[in-house]
């Protein structure tokens, strides 16, 4: 299982804050998780589409799309941060 979280604009547009995905070797990187989500079409394709800046974190560490994903990981997606 992979716990997937969405924050801020993404959470609102996707109308979900979190979901769990069954782990499979096909989603062994962050980019592969994104590709899987995009396949759902509609708003998923929009949010994760080309030209969108989506940041990712695995187990609460920011990472790029090549970062590995293992069974049990927490994978989060969110827009560029704007705190401070």
């Amino acid at each position: 299982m992979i716990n997937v979280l969405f924050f801020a604009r993404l959470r609102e547009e996707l109308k979900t804050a979190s979901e769990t995905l069954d782990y499979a070797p096909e989603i062994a990187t962050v980019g592969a998780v994104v590709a899987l989500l995009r396949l759902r079409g509609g708003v998923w394709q929009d949010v994760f589409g080309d030209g969108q800046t989506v940041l990712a974190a695995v187990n609460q560490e920011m990472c790029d799309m090549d970062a590995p994903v293992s069974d049990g990981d927490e994978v989060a997606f969110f827009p560029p941060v704007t705190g401070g």
Partner: protein
Amino acid sequence: MNQIKVQKEPFDMTTIQEELRLASPGIGAVVTFVGQMRDINEGDTVSTMTLEHYPGMTERALQAIVDEADERWDLMGIRVVHRVGPLQPLDPIVLVAVASAHRGEAFQACEFIIDYLKTRAPFWKKEQTPDGERWVDARHSDDQAESRWKQ
């Protein structure tokens, strides 16, 4: 020696600064940055702001930034406090305070921490304006500010 807090409640700047500066009689300089909510952004009146964050990751990200500052400079204490939840104009959003023996290091570390916080800590601002709610966009100037520290 260093403290990081993420909280809904207002923070007391005086207590934080006093506790930091009195920690050692070897401290010669304390530099404090306070970021507060403006009532205007990109030309529009902003009545309220809501700060969302990623609990857990926020604290880790702030800790990593503070640890990096501690490695780069010779410091004698760091405090970072960031509010989340609803905020009004003039409310302090974030405080970064750094103590050191000499001022140069305190200035650099304080600015480094807030620059990195702006691009690396998972906070998101949503503004309430007369035209409705909107998410605040990341600023290019914040990316530039961060990139100064990469040598």
